[in-house]
């Protein structure tokens, strides 16, 4: 019989056979390569009972308008049953510039929340149970030290001990510089140094904090494959560990707090296999390559998010279906924390209704489908195990490729990685234009009538004005001599190669702005322009 397609491929390009059998797993050793959940190499999951003991955390990435409005949003999300916060910063904050920068006016509060000083962090978390719901600070590497310091000082001022504070800072170099244009950046090599300084300091001062969450979600949005996504993600972690080795740090302590964050796209089984391969591959890197002995180091703990780039503006309700499948793949892949997107992502920031639907999508999966009763339910499937092995093998090759080019700092500075991204997005677009890749409602099955129109959320157009007024007030009332001393200290410590965090903490306590802190580094190192050439 004639098949519906001439050839069948996975998203990463592996030819797929009509059926898989034990013959496809001939080289696989159950005990060594798969094993039990909670046991090395963790292919089947990090914990013996998985979701029977603890459901994944429902953690939406959110924030917009002003810190005060975001506080209301977080309170609401918490009431709906969300048990973790994840801060979406606006574009100026991501770049490390202040809300009163003349270039920032239209972007303050537009795609995230602005944070200029400690006061904004205090306003954003006012009254929220930060000891019960852990926060993920989704900040780029240059802004991470100051933004996390603001969170830490806020927590201290509320009486929490940093030694018991739980949460995460993204602090990933490649996601910071590899997927969104950020103005006024300094070169990756300097940002790498700050990232390692930050981790080193947190290990001592905030030992329960996760000072890095290696994040491939954002660059995966440029249509690289699942293999490339996993390869770059782990190559980034390897590059960080290599830096730690240069500093002669204790690798058990350095690697232990690592967490990861990935996208979840449409190729259902391949995405599940990717998560399983990630755990096995990370185990071999942490245990075999780096010789760590603390089992926490061997565990690939990850958050996953449904893929925004798979959502369409056309017939936006279809995205609810895409999101549900993707979130199901996250759960079958053993995620520790999941964000289900808003179905209106292609149009605007989520409305209240779409936010509710994304929380409900996860709750229905957790409480109605009964998929949580057994660990790794797809383990042992000939297809899944074969695919897990394929992804692991090819991701390993891609890690070697990046390492042969000098690691992630080099591939950013040389521009090689941007060429990979450009190629991926162009190839993908060609496949959509040719119809090789079907997008329902866009290049196939198009509606001849008007589709459902989703309501559009609008940002607070006054956010820049409000933030600027707050900044003026802070600048008027703060102790300018204390501030000046703090910034001078930061300059001196940075130039001398000391750890930047103690002076960043003092600068934040002196009500330095995010921009003032980053400007110290810009003045020392000059600006670096992302080498992106279409």
């Amino acid at each position: 019989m004639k098949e519906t397609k001439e050839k069948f491929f996975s998203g990463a390009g592996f030819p797929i056979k009509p059926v898989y059998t034990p013959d496809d797993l001939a080289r696989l050793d159950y005990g060594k390569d798969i094993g039990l959940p909670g046991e090395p190499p963790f292919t089947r999951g990090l914990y013996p009972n998985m979701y029977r003991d603890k459901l994944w955390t429902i953690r939406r990435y959110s924030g917009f308008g002003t810190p005060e409005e975001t506080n209301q949003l977080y309170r609401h999300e918490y009431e709906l049953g969300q048990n973790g916060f994840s801060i979406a910063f606006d574009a100026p904050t991501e770049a490390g510039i202040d809300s009163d920068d003349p270039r920032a006016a239209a972007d303050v509060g537009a795609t995230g929340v602005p944070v200029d000083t400690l006061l904004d962090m205090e306003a954003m978390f006012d009254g929220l149970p930060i000891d019960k719901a852990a926060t993920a600070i989704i900040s780029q590497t240059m802004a991470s030290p100051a933004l996390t310091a603001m969170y830490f000082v806020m927590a201290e001022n509320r009486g929490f001990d940093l030694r018991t504070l739980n949460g995460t800072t993204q602090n990933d170099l490649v996601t910071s510089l590899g997927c969104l244009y950020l103005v006024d950046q300094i070169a990756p090599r300097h940002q790498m140094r700050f990232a390692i300084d930050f981790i080193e300091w947190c290990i001592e001062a905030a030992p329960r904090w996760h000072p890095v969450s290696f994040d491939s979600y954002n660059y995966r949005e440029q249509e690289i494959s699942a293999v490339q996504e996993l390869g770059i993600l782990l190559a980034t972690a390897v590059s960080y560990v290599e830096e730690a080795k240069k500093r002669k740090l204790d690798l058990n302590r350095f690697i232990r707090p690592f967490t990861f964050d990935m996208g979840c796209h449409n190729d259902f089984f391949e995405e599940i296999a990717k998560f399983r391969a990630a755990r096995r591959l990370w185990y071999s890197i942490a245990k075999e390559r780096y010789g760590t002995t603390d089992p926490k180091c061997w565990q690939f703990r990850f958050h996953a998010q449904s893929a925004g780039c798979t959502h369409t503006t056309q017939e936006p309700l279809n995205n609810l279906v895409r999101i549900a499948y993707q979130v199901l793949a996250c759960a079958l892949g053993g995620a520790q924390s999941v964000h289900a997107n808003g179905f209106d992502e292609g149009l605007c920031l989520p409305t209240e209704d779409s936010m509710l639907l994304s929380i409900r999508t996860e709750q229905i999966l957790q409480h109605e489908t009964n998929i949580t009763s057994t660990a790794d339910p797809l383990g042992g499937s000939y297809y899944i195990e074969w695919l897990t092995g394929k992804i692991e093998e090819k991701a390993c090759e891609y890690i070697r490729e990046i390492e042969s080019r000098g690691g992630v700092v080099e591939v950013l500075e040389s521009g090689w990685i941007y060429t990979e991204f450009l190629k991926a997005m162009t190839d993908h677009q060609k496949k959509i234009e040719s119809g090789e890749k079907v997008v329902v409602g866009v290049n196939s099955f198009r509606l001849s009538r008007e589709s459902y129109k989703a309501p559009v959320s609008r940002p607070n157009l006054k956010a820049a004005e409000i933030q600027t007024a707050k900044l003026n007030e802070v600048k008027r009332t703060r102790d300018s001599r204390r501030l000046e001393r703090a910034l001078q200290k930061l300059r001196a410590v940075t130039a001398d190669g000391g750890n930047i965090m103690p002076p960043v903490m003092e600068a934040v306590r002196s009500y330095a702005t995010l921009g003032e802190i980053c400007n110290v580094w810009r003045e020392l190192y000059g600006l670096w322009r992302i080498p992106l050439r279409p």
Partner: protein
Amino acid sequence: MQPNNPKVLMAKPGLDGHWRGILVVSMALRDAGMEVVYGGNMTPQEIAEAAAQEDVQFVGLSLLSPGHMRLISETLDALRERAMEHVMVVAGGTIPEEDVPRLKTLGVAKVFGPGSPLEDIVAFFRQSACQPRD
């Protein structure tokens, strides 16, 4: 330069960094034989200056943040201040349909939303370049 292969400045006004859309469209226009000046993120003033210096026929603006109304109208104002009304402004990105009529009144020639086929975008630039302008 062929009249149907115009020169285009591609830019992102403001600080929103989402670059996939502008990159893919820039490469498609270049593959179609047009001369593309890639500006990336710029202020509205910088866009108008670059448009004048490069003597382009089109300015393509890509916006994926809700600041689009303000940033597009500031860019149009900056072009007008330099007496560059002859430059055709085309916008793309996550711009709600309900905003399109107002953008057209302000002077935007065309808005391409997410998922617009590249061949439609290329064809629009070609056809508009051939039309006599006043």
